[in-house]
């Protein structure tokens, strides 16, 4: 698998940015700027640690990193470290080349798929616990106990559950999953920060538009009757598929 120039990892200590040891600094700086811009919506007062592996940076390069990071609202460069290259097995959950793997929790903290911990010697390593496939890693779910009307929207960093309908003209944007115990007739964007494993489920899944990560889809033209049973939408082979949702097993 092609190694990413810039990798983001969330840890309890802050956001760790790992710059690939083999690429040109200028390329890395540009990539960093670009990645920070695209995930702008979810950065909140994050402390950033940049791991430049075995590279030695001169003053201009350090200042360049500082500038790029402080240009991003809410981020502060805490330190630049020289840690050994991150081992190969932390990449086994990086299935999508240009994706941010980091998931932000609403309190400003961050969590990635399998949690990364700071060891006593200061090294960054993956934790022993492997995340079950059924868990998304988002620890927060917002429960909305009413119907969402046209023009109302929810933007949440986590998963969203609705006890009611979502009417046409209403929007739910979540970094995690979206589950509606009612009719979903609005616009859903699950996995909004890039999580292609996010799902959208509803008793009656009839959205005007459905988005998971960066894939947008709509119902087939001419389909006016709508579904008769609960359904779940997810990405399979790069496309959004909608299947009947069975409560026993998956």
């Amino acid at each position: 698998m092609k190694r990413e120039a810039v990798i983001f990892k969330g840890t309890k200590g802050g956001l760790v940015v790992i710059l690939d040891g083999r690429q040109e600094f200028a390329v890395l700086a540009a990539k960093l700027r670009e990645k920070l811009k695209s995930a702008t919506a979810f950065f909140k007062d994050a402390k950033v640690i940049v791991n430049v592996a075995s590279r030695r940076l001169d003053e201009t390069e350090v200042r360049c990193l500082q500038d790029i990071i402080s240009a991003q609202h809410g981020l502060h460069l805490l330190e630049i470290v020289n840690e050994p290259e991150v081992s190969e097995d932390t990449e086994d959950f990086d299935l999508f080349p240009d994706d941010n793997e980091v998931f932000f929790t609403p309190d400003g903290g961050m969590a990635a798929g399998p949690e990364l911990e700071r060891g006593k010697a200061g090294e960054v390593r993956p934790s022993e616990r492997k995340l079950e496939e059924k868990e998304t890693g988002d620890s927060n779910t917002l429960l909305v106990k009413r119907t969402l009307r046209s023009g109302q929207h929810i933007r949440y960093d986590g998963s969203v559950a609705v006890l009611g309908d979502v009417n046409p003209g209403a929007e739910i944007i979540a970094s995690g999953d979206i589950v509606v115990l009612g009719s979903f007739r609005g616009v859903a964007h699950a996995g909004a920060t890039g999580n292609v494993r996010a799902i959208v489920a509803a008793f009656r899944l009839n959205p005007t538009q459905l988005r998971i990560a960066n894939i947008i889809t709509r119902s087939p033209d001419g389909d006016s009757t709508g579904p008769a049973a609960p359904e779940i939408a997810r990405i399979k082979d790069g496309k959004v598929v909608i299947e009947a949702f069975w409560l026993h097993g998956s």
Partner: protein
Amino acid sequence: MGTVYVITSGKGGVGKTTTVANLGTGLAALGKKVVMVDTDIGLRNLDVVLGLENRIVYDIVDVVEGTCRLKQAMIKDKRFDDSLFLLPAAQTRDKNAISQEQMQEICGTLKEDFDFVLIDCPAGIEQGFKNAVAGAEEAIIVTNPEVSAVRDADRIIGLLEAAELHSPKLVVNRLRPHMVKKGDMMDINDMLDILAIELLGVVPEDEAIVVSTNRGEPAVLDRASKAGQAYRNIVRRMDGQNVPFMSMEAETGFMGRLRKMIGLDK
């Protein structure tokens, strides 16, 4: 102490002004004391529909600017002895001429002397809407059995909830039963599925409305009009009576009856 109702819709042209004129007139016919307030400043219509436009001397903007007293701006409808009044909007100003606080004050004063204060809300969700809603305690949403009208009504319900006006009631206007039967028009249940509020009444499409508007004589006074009958029923429901909904069977003329006889129309 009366109640202040705002009659609103979001979408324009669905029948808010017609509904205010008919409900106001109908309630007065039941013996209630009613004042109707037109807040569509700059595009006033309520006066025309009631046949009172040539009696306007002062309007609501004159009242808030202190040019006249509230009583001087109110026009008495001569058809009902001291029971039905209109507070007209200004035509030469726009919706920024009045504020939400001023509306609240006027509504507070009016509800002391009247059983029903009916506020005719303009289309939209901007200042005109906010003004109309400011003094209201109850809301009636008027809509048509039509996708864009329902979409806008849903938006309005959301905004009313935010303004602490919970449990609005629904009036479905301009229903065409034969189109509903053919599946060419939304039926009431489809609408209630999305809007999920209490149904106050259903008013069928009726040519008598066009005539009544032009003449300035609300259809609720017309015994022969089906729309008038629907409005009379709504008025009785507002008075607390339990009135069953009109059967919305399609009108059958001679050809219709003939087709039914031969079995062409079920």
